[in-house]
Each structure stands twice: as structure tokens, then as C-alpha cells.
């Protein structure tokens, strides 16, 4: 990612990222030596306990992530050099070097789990607003949810309107980009590895803006006994933290106050997003869905600032639309959910690269809802959001519907018997039996009477 090269652009004696403040909604902080000097804990907040102490309680259990906030923080702001003798390696102890070691970080505790189990979307929305009110410059979100809501979107827009660059993890082991990363206003970050290839388990899709390292990333850790350590972790959590560090470097390099004066604070996120995307390096063998490629920090800092941006750059947060298309329950929502629907976690690179056509998606949805394709948009306006909710929140149902979208492989006998032209036509989609099984599941699930009626054809 050329981070050391980017650091060389800072004058001697000036720490890269100096002056930058990063808001960090996560599982809370610890006094880990790799991050403690960079924390602004007095500005933090704990939305789990509703108090001002954002300390990570390090609870352990099913889908809990003790120390996650410590690890992702370190990737952003850990100071240069070893902070203590981790690893007992004598003169060369293990250490984490954050991307923006001169920046400060405000920890905001929103959940004990980054998959937001047991609630947390409201906490995340409030945490984003809290961070914006504390005048952070960047917000790094290493968590996400599988279904959108306008409460979360409005929180992102609230921050962006105040000139805050908001970045979020694309997601792990799931066939679509999670929210809030999926929003246009958020820089969605997918993950790659040290071999400059895509990380197999990274979410991917049209909503991804850029990619950054997210496999075996060195970070601060908290052990089962509460002791501190340095180790490695994988996930888009770390990829987004890396790019948040690049955002802090860019702001520090140009001077945020100068940027705000020149363009207006609310334009800063849009300008950064454009520069970030325009200065990526290609990723080896990456299919679609990894944005513009691998972030190159040095090129981002070297990129010239745009002219005349007041007139030319639209600010998506202030668009008049009430709901983004991917939230509205129409075809765009389902396209987002199923554009790369590899079954999780048995994803293969070939399966991940497959994409679903709108024609197939439209046909299957019409079939499921018992309407013609012409009637489909109206039906989706009625129950599309709820249908998307059930598909996104139930892995079995998701995979069952995704299977109906997969190209059908003609059987060997069919291949032999049929002329080539016919075989090609047969390769369009699977039989509707899969749709019937999805319908059956929806009718037995905890779905509303309205959705049941539409699915069963009586509504």
C-alpha cells in the first residue's frame, strides 16, 4: 500500500497523521501499550452501558469479540516502533505500526460484537453522531448489519454533512456488502492479502469502493487472561482500519482546515473518496466487486487537489431522495444482495466471480411473488423490503434463493443429445423447484400476514 513512502512526505519531526482525529465505533478500548498514548478517552462514550467510559469489558462468548476495538485501533494509530517487549525477542520485539501514528482516536463503544448480535444498529447510529459532534475528521467502522435502515443512513449523512470521512468494512463470509458500507456516502473497503490478491472471504460487490490488506494483519491483541499481546487477525475490519489511516494521513498532509476553507467541509469526504478511488493499484486476478483496486497511500497523498469543486462535485448526502435504491426493497435491493451470491462459507473464487443477471433475478422474484414481471415493481413496493429482510437474515433461505439464480449446468446426457445452440439456451437458470422451496420456507417462517398472502398468491 506504499504507506512508508507516504510517510516520507511528512517533514522531519512531524508524525504522519498529526492533527487527525479518528472516531472509532467498536467494542471499546483497552490500555494496550500499542494504542494507549493515542486515545482521547475523555471524548469517548459507551452506548452499551450508556455512560462515558468506553472501556472494553472483554466479555467472552458466542460471537463476542473481546479486544476487537483494541486491534483495529492499533492498525490506525499505533505509534512507530516497539512500545514494549512483545514476543520476548530481545532487540527486535513484535510491534504494530499504525498507518497514521500521529493521529488521535476517540473510542466509542457500541457493542460487544462486531456482527452486532443482540442489538447495536441504534448504538452504531448514535455513535456516529456522537463522534461527529466531537469534531472527528474520520470515522472507521469495522462492523456492519445485514439489513439497511434509514436511522443508520441519516447518522452517516449527519457526519458527512460536517465534513467527516466515513469508512466501513464490506463484510466477511457473506455474499453481499453489509450496511453501512453499502451506502454511497460510506467508503466501503474489501480485503486483500500480502500476495496482492483478494482475500477469499471478503464481501464483494458493486458497493465496494476500494480494497486494502485484511488477511493476517499485525495488530494489538488481548489474550484470554486479559494480558496484552501482538498478533495477527483477518477480516475487512482491518482493511477498513488501514484505509481510515490513509484518510487521516491525507487530511494531515493537506491540512484539514485548509481543505475546509477551500472547498467547504461537507465536500471533503467526496473529494477524498474520488482521489482514493482514482489512485488505486490493480489487484492480481481480482474479478469484479473489489472497487477500483488496492489503495496506494503514496499516490493518494501525491494526487493533486481538484479545482472548481464547489460547482462540479455533487454531495450525495444532500440528495432529495428519501431512500437509496438498495434500501427500498425494489430490484436494486435484491441485485445488491445477490449480485455475487456465493454460498457461505464454502465460497470458491470461481463461484465468487459469478454474477447474476437482472433478467434472471426479475424472473425468480416474479415467480416467488406470483406476479408477472410487469407487475413485479408494484408488488415489491408493497412487500419487497420485508422479503429482502427475510432473505438477508436467514442464511438457509438466502442460499436457497441464491441457488435458483445460479446458471444451470446441462447434464452430460443433455449435452450429448442436444445441438450446441439448444444447450446454450438450457444453461440459463435452474428449474423453478427451488423457488417453490423458498416459498414453502417463507410460509412457515415468522413472516407478516401481508407477505404470506403475496407469496401464497391470495393477496
Amino acid at each position, binding site marked *: 500500500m506504499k504507506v512508508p513512502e507516504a510517510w516520507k512526505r511528512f517533514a522531519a519531526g512531524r508524525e504522519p497523521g498529526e492533527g487527525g482525529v479518528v472516531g472509532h465505533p467498536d467494542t471499546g478500548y483497552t490500555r494496550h501499550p500499542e494504542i494507549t498514548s493515542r486515545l482521547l478517552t475523555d471524548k469517548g462514550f459507551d452506548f452499551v452501558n450508556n455512560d462515558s467510559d468506553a472501556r472494553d469489558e472483554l466479555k467472552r462468548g458466542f460471537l*463476542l469479540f473481546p479486544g476487537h476495538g483494541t486491534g483495529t485501533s492499533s492498525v490506525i494509530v499505533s505509534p512507530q516502533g516497539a512500545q514494549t517487549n512483545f514476543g520476548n525477542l530481545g532487540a527486535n520485539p513484535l510491534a504494530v505500526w499504525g498507518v497514521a501514528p500521529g493521529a488521535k482516536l476517540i473510542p466509542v463503544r457500541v457493542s460487544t460484537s462486531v456482527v452486532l448480535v443482540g442489538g447495536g444498529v441504534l448504538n452504531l447510529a448514535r455513535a456516529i453522531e456522537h463522534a461527529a459532534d466531537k469534531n472527528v475528521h474520520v470515522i472507521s467502522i469495522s462492523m456492519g448489519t445485514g439489513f439497511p*435502515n434509514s436511522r443508520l443512513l441519516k447518522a452517516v449523512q449527519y457526519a458527512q454533512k460536517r465534513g467527516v470521512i466515513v469508512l466501513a468494512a464490506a463484510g466477511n463470509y457473506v455474499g453481499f456488502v*453489509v450496511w453501512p458500507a453499502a451506502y454511497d456516502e460510506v467508503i466501503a473497503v474489501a480485503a486483500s492479502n500480502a500476495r496482492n490478491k483478494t482475500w477469499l472471504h471478503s464481501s464483494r460487490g458493486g458497493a465496494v469502493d476500494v480494497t486494502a490488506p485484511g488477511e493476517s494483519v499485525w495488530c494489538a491483541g488481548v489474550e484470554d487472561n486479559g494480558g496484552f499481546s501482538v*498478533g495477527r487477525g483477518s477480516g475487512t475490519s482491518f482493511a477498513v482500519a488501514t484505509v481510515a489511516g490513509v484518510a487521516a494521513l491525507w487530511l494531515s498532509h493537506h491540512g484539514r482546515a485548509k481543505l475546509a476553507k477551500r472547498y467547504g467541509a461537507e465536500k471533503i469526504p467526496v473529494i477524498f473518496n474520488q482521489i482514493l478511488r482514482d489512485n488505486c493499484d490493480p489487484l492480481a486476478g481480482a474479478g469484479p466487486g473489489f472497487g477500483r483496486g488496492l489503495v496506494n497511500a503514496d499516490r493518494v497523498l501525491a494526487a493533486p487537489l481538484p479545482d472548481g469543486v464547489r460547482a462540479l462535485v455533487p454531495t450525495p448526502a444532500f440528495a432529495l431522495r428519501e431512500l437509496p435504491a438498495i434500501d427500498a426493497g425494489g430490484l436494486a435491493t435484491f441485485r445488491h444482495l445477490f449480485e455475487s451470491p456465493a454460498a457461505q462459507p464454502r465460497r470458491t473464487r470461481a463461484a465468487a466471480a459469478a454474477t447474476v443477471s437482472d433478467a434472471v433475478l426479475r424472473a425468480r422474484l416474479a415467480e416467488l411473488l406470483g406476479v408477472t414481471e410487469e407487475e413485479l415493481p408494484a408488488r415489491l413496493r408493497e412487500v419487497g423490503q420485508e422479503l429482502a429482510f427475510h432473505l438477508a437474515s436467514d442464511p438457509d433461505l438466502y442460499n436457497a434463493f441464491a441457488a435458483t439464480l445460479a446458471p444451470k449446468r446441462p447434464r452430460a446426457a443433455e449435452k450429448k443429445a442436444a445441438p450446441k445452440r439448444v444447450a446454450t439456451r438450457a444453461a440459463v437458470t435452474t428449474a423453478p423447484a427451488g423457488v417453490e422451496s423458498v416459498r414453502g420456507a417463507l410460509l412457515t417462517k415468522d413472516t407478516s400476514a401481508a407477505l404470506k398472502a403475496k407469496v401464497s398468491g391470495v393477496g
Partner: protein
Amino acid sequence: MPPAEANAMNEQRDQPDLKDARPVFEGFVVKALGRGGKTRARQAVTRVLGAGWTVRTFGDDESDFEVTRRERKGATLTARRAWEKTYALRAQPGLTYAEPIFTVPVSGPPGFRAEGLEQTV
């Protein structure tokens, strides 16, 4: 279900399978335009949901309202009930939009935590 309760419940489970992690209903978002929007939002919420709900503005738009249980430990709504209440709120005069707020866990395969310090998060 408030986060603390839900997580305590999660801790009791033996097999870390994401299929066990169900969506959690957190509240509603409703929109009521113009002057007196908050009053109309409150009235609509009371008609559909009954007493015990807090209606408050959020963000920059005074026509947006977050609707949550007054008591954090109050009984939650099932997905079906939440959607049915959403449709009922949308049908209320004075409200131009309503939607449920769910937290939907999606990340991490079974056995997502590897040995030692390797973590997939």
C-alpha cells in the same frame, strides 16, 4: 431485547453457529412532515403500538423520528409483529414513511475464531 440481555443469552450457547444469531428488533423510524410532525408521529405510534414507546427526533431533519421502547428491558417484537406494525404505521394519516430497525448479524462463519491470536473479525 437490549444488548446486555441478548449477549448474556448468547454466552450460554455451546455451538458457535451463525444460524443461531437471529435478527434483533430495535425500534422503528417514522417520518411526519411539517409543523406538528412530532405530535402526529406520537399519536400514530400510540394508535398502532400502544403506550410505552418513546418518539424522538434525530439527525438534522426534524421530520424524522426514532421510536423505541421506553423501558430498555421491555418485551421485544418478533420479526412478524415488527413488519405488521410497520405496515400499520405506514397506513396512518400523518405519517409519510415507516420502517423497522433490525440488527441483522451476517458476518463470520462457524468456527470463525482460529487458534491463538489469529482472528477473523
